[in-house]
């Protein structure tokens, strides 16, 4: 049961987006995140939304799943919106009742922030939905490989990531086993208050930690047997290759940056009153 969990929520759908080089995907995702913050008016933000919608459509990931991904940050969105409405006092006053004082500026600012945060989350989950952990580590490895010249060996970081990904299912299985073993000795993990339950986790985590350390020793031996020396002079069997569509996507990413900058300049700073009036 626990064995079937997916890590990083990858959906192997085999779409155009899935087949892109991970470096291209990493590049457009990070560009997008920066551009969402650079966008200073609703029109440049609309361009960001259009791009996100295009990527979601091409990836074949169900819209429902994408929206579900927003659920964990719902609270953050609500709090931010509340603060914006409470403190931004520009534009036309909409409601002025007792201590509640809501202005059009506050509402628009809240909407603006909600869109920004949602876009941020949607695009980063889209990256994990469409990129397998292995290809992600490969992509990171290749992207940061040049850092060796300034003394940062990213190879070790990706090795750690790979091992972590590899051992998550193994350790989950182990937790399952320890849980059963402790239960058969009369341990009760399901009742009592929160402190009691937290205390019950000790007989679960101590054996888990011990076994993880033992595994680490054995793995170190096994890796030494296979001539691992920290990734010096390492080659890769499935070397990543930038294809035509990857170049195209990278080109489009640059076009997107230009688009946001141009819209920012032409449509000016985000102006609550102006936007509201024109909207009405």
């Amino acid at each position, binding site marked *: 049961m626990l064995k079937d969990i997916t890590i990083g929520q990858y959906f192997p759908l085999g779409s155009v987006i899935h087949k892109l080089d991970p470096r291209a995907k990493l590049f457009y995702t990070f560009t997008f995140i920066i551009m969402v913050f650079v966008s200073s008016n609703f029109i440049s933000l609309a361009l960001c939304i259009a791009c996100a919608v295009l990527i979601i459509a091409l990836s074949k990931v169900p819209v429902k799943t994408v929206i579900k991904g927003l659920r964990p940050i719902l609270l953050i969105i609500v709090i931010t919106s509340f603060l914006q409405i409470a403190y931004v006092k520009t534009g036309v006053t909409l409601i002025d009742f007792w201590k509640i004082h809501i202005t059009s500026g506050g509402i628009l600012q809240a909407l603006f922030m909600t869109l920004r945060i949602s876009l941020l989350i949607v695009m980063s989950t889209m990256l994990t939905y469409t990129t397998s952990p*292995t290809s992600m580590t490969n992509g990171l490895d290749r992207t940061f490989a040049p850092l060796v010249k300034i003394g940062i060996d990213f190879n070790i970081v990706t090795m750690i990531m790979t091992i972590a*990904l590899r051992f998550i299912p193994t350790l989950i299985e182990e937790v399952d086993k320890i849980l059963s073993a402790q239960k058969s000795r009369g341990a009760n993990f399901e009742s009592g208050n929160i402190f009691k339950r937290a205390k019950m986790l000790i007989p679960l985590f101590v054996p888990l930690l011990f076994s993880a350390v033992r*595994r680490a020793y054995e793995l170190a031996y096994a*890796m030494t047997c296979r001539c691992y020396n920290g990734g010096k002079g390492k*080659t890769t*069997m499935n070397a990543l290759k930038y294809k035509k569509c990857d170049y195209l996507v990278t080109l489009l990413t640059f076009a997107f940056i230009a688009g946001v900058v141009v819209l920012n300049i032409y449509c000016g700073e985000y102006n609550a009153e102006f936007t509201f009036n024109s909207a009405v």
Partner: protein
Amino acid sequence: MSDTILKFQNVTFRYDGDEGKILPPAVEDLSLEIKKGEFVAFLGHNGSGKSTVAKLSNGLVVPESGDVYVLGMNTKNEDDDIKIKQTVGVVFQNPDNQIVATIVEEDVAFGPENLGIEPSEIRRRVDEALKVVGMYKYRMHEPHKLSGGQKQRVAIAGIIAMEPQCIVLDEPTAMLDPEGRRDVMKAMKRLNCELGITVVFITHYMEEACQADRIIVMDDSHLVLDGTPREVFSDVDRIRGLGLDVPQTCALAKMLKDDGIDIHGDSLGVDELVNSLAEILNRG
């Protein structure tokens, strides 16, 4: 000299105890030679020092005194380290703790990648190694979804892909079910017969040990018996005295002999035993 791949010369080794306590040696004054192309089984009960032999054989640990030579290279010499590990590969008991990558074929590629081999050559080696152990069709699978025997064969493929001349397997079948054990045994035999790789394996199972060309028995850090399965199992009482089992056929022959029935002393295989029993019965 040239046909010796692995040579232990008066090797003594002990592990570090807690707080400077001195532990008894895990291996003491061990001398042996393994020739190219041999198929050798190591037997011994728990704590007899046989797992330490595996670690000593490619320099994972170095002897306290004495020397281990791999093709004439001393494992104490760090300059030869990579060459030694490339020549002698070690497979351990728990396959889970040997697999590094999240996809089977990428794990098998790990060794050759570390050696800096050309990508096209790695591809060829990975495919070949997976075919030898019969795991080719699982090359795109995630290791944690495979059975124990399959995982162990992937671990073996990971070593073969480095094209070693000798493989040492430390109880590769101990954690497997009978079917997994059979598959791993079959893979080891193929390596020996078809690829000419020297195979040294440590085991608890007498039936597996019988399939070797040569059996080395260890007891209490020392080498006590060394010979063909026929020679080693001829002395049933001695083997039992070392806390080991004998193959069921040998046990039966011994019981019959003790009852005064004249049977050949070394009935190792089932067929052989059946034949000698039939002979006795026909004689009346």
